[in-house]
């Protein structure tokens, strides 16, 4: 089981309040991480307007992520990519019943504050947008709204968890329609998890301490992770997913769910494809159902895709390395 504890003392994001005369607590780790638990085995879809958000909801998306531009357009446009227009985010929140997430720039406290005030259900501190601080990520414990962060390795994931991330997405290369990087990174995280699990199982504390130094996180967090043998928060795959088979494969590698960016709404058969990706994610263990899902899409209408080797901009590398 994924532990829901792991709060830091006096975190500013956890607040005591009242609903009329009844005492309540908000923003606890249980509530923030618990929210991510409710998304498990689901697909979160990137959208830029109400129409796309409604298509996503009807197709069975578990949540939508609002951006100003889809990642492949961010790549084409160049320049600085910032958080989406608040008016569009609010319009989407008023028109779908599923949770609404939005992205802020890495390290941009005040874009995050604005999204927190807007009442989005989760904030993605994302490398798809241009980082605002090359040396720090946001200190996420100070927020009542939960955060999701990207990671390419176990160390990166645990650094984000230590800063208060309630959910992780193993990174791919966004906006490429190329799933190779997403596969590489989840396999890498899995391998690192197996390594520390075996250290824990053989009670090798010295090696675990060395791992904590290498990961640049506290020993306690490494030990807890090693003990359960998985990330201590929900982990989705993201970046470059374009087809039902892509999604099913990532589920089979142990991801808790899927983020799809440009893969759906940059394809010419968005509506069918959205549905097909959800079906393949839900029924990934049943090959006949994945085949049926794959049959719903037309490869000639897929996002063309890019070879990761020739990219000028690698979004996955953006942001602080510590």
């Amino acid at each position, binding site marked *: *089981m*994924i532990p*829901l504890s792991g709060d830091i003392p006096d975190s500013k994001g956890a607040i005591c*309040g009242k*609903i*009329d005369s*009844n*005492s*309540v*607590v*908000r*923003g*606890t780790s*249980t*509530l923030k991480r*618990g*929210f991510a*638990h*409710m*998304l*498990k*085995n*689901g697909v979160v879809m990137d959208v830029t307007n109400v129409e796309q958000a409604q298509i996503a*909801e009807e197709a*069975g*998306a*578990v*949540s939508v992520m609002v951006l100003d531009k889809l990642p492949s357009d961010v790549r084409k446009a160049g320049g600085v990519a910032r958080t989406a227009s608040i008016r569009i985010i609010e319009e989407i*929140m*008023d*028109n*779908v*019943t*599923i*949770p609404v997430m939005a992205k802020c720039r890495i390290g941009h406290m005040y874009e995050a504050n604005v999204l*927190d005030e807007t*009442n*989005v*259900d*989760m904030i993605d501190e994302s490398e798809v947008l241009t980082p605002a601080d090359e040396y720090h990520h946001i200190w996420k414990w100070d927020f*009542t*709204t*939960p955060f999701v962060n990207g990671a390419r390795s176990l160390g990166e994931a645990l650094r984000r968890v230590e800063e208060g991330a309630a959910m992780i997405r193993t990174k791919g290369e966004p906006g490429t329609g190329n799933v190779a990087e997403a596969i590489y990174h989840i396999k890498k995280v899995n391998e690192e998890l197996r390594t520390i699990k075996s250290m824990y199982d053989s009670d090798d504390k010295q090696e675990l301490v060395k791992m904590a130094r290498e990961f640049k996180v506290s020993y306690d967090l490494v030990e807890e992770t090693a003990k359960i043998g998985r990330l201590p928060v929900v982990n989705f795959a993201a970046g470059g997913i374009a087809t039902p088979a892509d999604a099913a494969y990532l589920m089979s590698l142990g991801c808790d769910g899927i983020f799809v960016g440009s893969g759906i709404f940059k394809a010419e058969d968005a509506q069918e494809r959205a549905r097909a990706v*959800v*079906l393949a994610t*839900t*029924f990934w263990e049943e090959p006949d*159902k994945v085949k049926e899902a794959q049959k719903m899409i037309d490869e000639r209408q897929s996002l063309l895709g890019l070879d990761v080797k020739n990219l000028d901009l690698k979004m996955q590398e953006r942001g602080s390395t510590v």
Partner: protein
Amino acid sequence: MSKIQIGILAVQGDVTENFLATMASMSELGIDGTVVQVKTIEQISELDGLIIPGGESTVIGQMSLVNGGLKKIKEKIESGMPVFGICAGMIFLSKNSKDKVVGKVEQPLLDVLDVKIERNSFGRQKDSFEANISMEPIGISSFNGVFIRAPSVSETGSDVEILAKFNEKIVAVKQGNIFATAFHPELTRDISLHKSFVKLVDNLN
């Protein structure tokens, strides 16, 4: 007495958490049984009890419709199989649901629990909360209720017993062998609710 089999509907949501809470309940009660994650009609047919976990009710409903699971679950519940619906599961069991902000949304429902639901009744994620809940009718005087974008019951039919209210809103109900809560017992360490459900399934077997 034969071995009982309780299923966790494994379409979407926090399946593992319910799986573990149910396993722990069986072992604490000393009941001989198995817990299985179920998705297909064949798996559902075998069950003596079913838990529908938290998640997104629109997704659980739509995906259960796709493989015929919805019809099978409805059939089993109507023939008396105990079921426990949590948050999205509560919505899925209901006969009618409406979103607090968006209003009426077309979504597949089991239509077995005679209640009307208000989805996202306490607001969005930032308004999600933990609070102490009392369920006197089933002998649980204090329970840590974890409410995540939780629904509430806005109207109940004559056969529905109200188990708990929070701030005048109905958050736990029972109708025959159907249990439903708006909050998430599987996210706490308290397994008393799961234990009551396991006992109910065991007594009927």
